[in-house]
């Protein structure tokens, strides 16, 4: 059974699917209708975590061990030193062999060794000399993607808007920017390929190839074959160089799904007001628009950076949620979509729990 974990501006929702991934049952809103930026599940235990922040009560990671029946919340240790700008919200969560991680605004990374009960700041990232030059993007100065290496708990990639991609190979003590080849169209002409500062929007890992990464950037789509040290553009054939989400296929490292938008100053809608997911089967050399079941006129929505994902079934399911609160599902790798919910709050994230 597939359960979709849907974070929204007003609470967390769970959509439980039937065996055919056709009928879906909504439960929620959970987390006291707090703004939830990201939800993840531990497939081994079924534990679900939801990260967010409330204007009144600050940042927290919410946890349920019983699929939403009861929740706890914690921010124990989820704080910078006295005098620093306080943490506003939790933006991203990831579980890897090294434990549970949380990315926050203002950008920083925390680790939990006890399943989200207590948190420890991985100070090394904010000690990086580039930190004074990190700038907030439209969503704030956020650490929005965390990619743990699947087997090596010391290796981790993070994405910061706007700071770029950084990698640690020592469990978070030291970090290296990995942005070579990604551009900054909004910088002066001679400064468009800096070492750091790029506005990465999404970062995903190819199945079974931990050194192959894909990213959707504010300025282009890219692939790296060497763990992010060098990136090459894969945007040719796409309708725009701008978008937020990226989703990797669960088994095929050459298949990637993107959802380009019409541009950063043009409303950030789907291009031509017609929705499409764009899929490559050859690691970005060519692209195919997937439109069946998606609105093809008068569609003025975007899809946020964490709001598209795949499941691990065969064929893979593909799911995305819109800024206008609609949730779309495909049970055949994007060939056909069905709208499974409308009128939700703005959807910030979509992830999957299987089993």
């Amino acid at each position, binding site marked *: 059974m597939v359960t979709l974990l849907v974070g929204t501006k007003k609470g967390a929702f769970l959509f439980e699917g039937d065996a055919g991934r056709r009928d879906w049952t909504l439960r929620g809103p959970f987390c*006291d209708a707090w703004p939830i930026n990201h939800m993840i599940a531990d497939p081994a235990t079924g534990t679900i975590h939801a990260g967010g922040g409330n*204007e*009144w*009560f*600050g940042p*927290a990671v919410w946890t349920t061990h019983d699929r939403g029946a009861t929740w706890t*919340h*914690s*921010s*124990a240790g*989820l*704080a*910078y*030193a*006295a*005098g*620093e700008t*306080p*943490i506003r919200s939790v933006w991203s969560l990831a579980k890897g062999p090294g434990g549970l991680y949380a990315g926050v605004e203002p950008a920083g990374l925390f680790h939990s060794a006890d399943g989200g009960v207590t948190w420890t700041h991985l100070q090394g990232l904010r000690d990086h000399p580039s930190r004074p030059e990190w700038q907030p993007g439209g969503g704030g100065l956020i650490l929005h993607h965390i990619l743990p290496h699947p087997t090596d708990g010391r290796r981790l990639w993070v994405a910061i808007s706007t700071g770029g991609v950084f990698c640690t190979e020592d469990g978070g003590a030291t970090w290296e920017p990995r942005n070579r080849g990604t551009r900054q169209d909004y910088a002066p002409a001679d400064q468009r390929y800096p070492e750091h500062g790029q506005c990465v929007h999404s970062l995903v890992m190819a199945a079974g190839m931990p050194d192959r990464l894909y990213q959707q950037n504010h300025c282009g789509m890219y692939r790296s074959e060497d763990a992010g040290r060098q990136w090459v553009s894969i945007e040719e054939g796409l309708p725009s160089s701008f978008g937020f989400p990226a989703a990797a296929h669960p088994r095929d490292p050459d298949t990637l799904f993107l959802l380009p938008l019409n541009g950063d100053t043009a409303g950030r809608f789907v291009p031509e007001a017609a929705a499409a997911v764009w899929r490559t089967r050859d690691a970005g050399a060519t692209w195919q628009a997937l439109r069946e079941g998606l609105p093809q006129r008068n569609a003025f929505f975007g899809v946020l950076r964490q709001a598209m994902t795949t499941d691990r079934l065969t064929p893979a399911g593909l799911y995305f949620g819109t800024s206008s609160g609609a949730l779309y599902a495909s049970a055949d790798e994007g060939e056909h979509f069905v709208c499974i919910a409308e009128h939700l709050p703005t959807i910030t994230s979509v992830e999957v729990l299987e089993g």
Partner: protein
Amino acid sequence: MARVLLPQALVRLFPGAARATEVEAADVAGAIAALDARWPGMRDRLCDSTPAIRRHLNVFVDGERATLATPLRPHAEMLVTTAMSGG
């Protein structure tokens, strides 16, 4: 003992918490520490790491806007309110 009045939106987050309670404390920071001892985690909901009362919360002691350092007289009333924010 000071009487503390908490907002419903906060009390909902802590099973068993009451909207009205009494604590023994010399100042607002002490009262919040006492609340945190009673309902672990409540301090993080009320205060940020500055440290300060969270920006969108207000604390009044005997009707006057307070900070963490505001003293509490015996029988003081400490009112915590959520600010008008949201959308």
